[in-house]
């Protein structure tokens, strides 16, 4: 592959990134080609030793998205990072997507459960109205509110841990994919 084709392929595939990020990356690879040519290497050989430009571009994007999810935590950023991983291989469909979805399901269940528990006195009121029955069951319901608070706090903590864990896991997967495509 010629240097021009190679660099164009990378440039085309990293267009989603911020402009100065793109420029920096293109300068790096331009520098690499030029320095290698000074050593007498052919453009074809240089391109070959670097590896598939599309994969390199995808990995650049993945790294960028993982770093973004790390520095600006949000579900959206994490989700985009997971998507970028998927673009790199079928294995990741099972290995990454499944834990991600499982994590979301568990955390959603915890939050929904805690909301239900927190609302239990109100639900009890709706069910029984202002009756003696209600008065008897109320203390239990209040206890459930406390329980619900614990579950809520647990859910929040689990979300934080899960987020960081997911990022660490994405990083490990990224290393593995890169090693595989060598």
């Amino acid at each position, binding site marked *: 592959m010629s240097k021009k084709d190679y660099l164009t392929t990378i440039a085309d595939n990293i267009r989603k990134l911020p402009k100065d990020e793109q420029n920096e990356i293109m300068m790096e690879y331009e520098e690499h080609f030029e320095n290698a040519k000074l050593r007498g290497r052919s453009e074809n050989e240089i391109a070959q030793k670097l590896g598939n430009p599309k994969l390199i571009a995808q990995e650049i994007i993945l790294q960028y998205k993982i770093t973004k999810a790390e520095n600006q935590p949000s579900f959206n950023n994490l989700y985009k990072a997971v998507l970028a991983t998927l673009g790199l291989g079928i294995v990741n469909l099972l290995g990454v997507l499944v834990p991600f979805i499982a994590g979301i399901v568990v955390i959603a269940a915890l939050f929904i459960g805690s909301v239900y528990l927190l609302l239990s006195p109100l639900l009890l009121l709706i069910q029984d109205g202002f009756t003696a029955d209600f008065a008897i069951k109320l203390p239990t319901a209040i206890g459930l509110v406390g329980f619900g608070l614990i579950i809520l706090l647990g859910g929040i903590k689990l979300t934080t841990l899960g987020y960081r864990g997911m990022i660490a896991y994405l990083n490990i997967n990224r290393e593995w994919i890169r*090693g*595989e495509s060598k």
Partner: protein
Amino acid sequence: MYYYNFSTLQYSVLYKVMVIKMNIQFKKGALELCVLSMIARKDRYGYELVEEISLNFEVSEGTIYPLLRRLTKEGVFSTYLMESTEGPPRKYYKLTPKGMQMKEDLVNEWNSFSNRMEMIIEGRGTTNE
């Protein structure tokens, strides 16, 4: 007979995948240490590092740049451009104090690891002596 063959095949594939994964994690750590210690001695530019590392290790040349980029973002390196007479301006990498610390830590880890490996290989410090 068929069942036996299938399960040994499964086992060996799984084993190979595990070994590959471990090798890659190991190589990644080794590469980081290489790059850190080389830059610790002297500021370097990208292609210099690629060339020197390729002398000793079989690595795809494309692996170095993402590594440098990531470590720079993490604050391990700072970079600056320097004009060159021969070609394009070169981006030089330099260790930050945080990078110096990281390099020290990795070197210590490596030393302790290789000492222990050596002991096991030479049969020292085991009970079968």
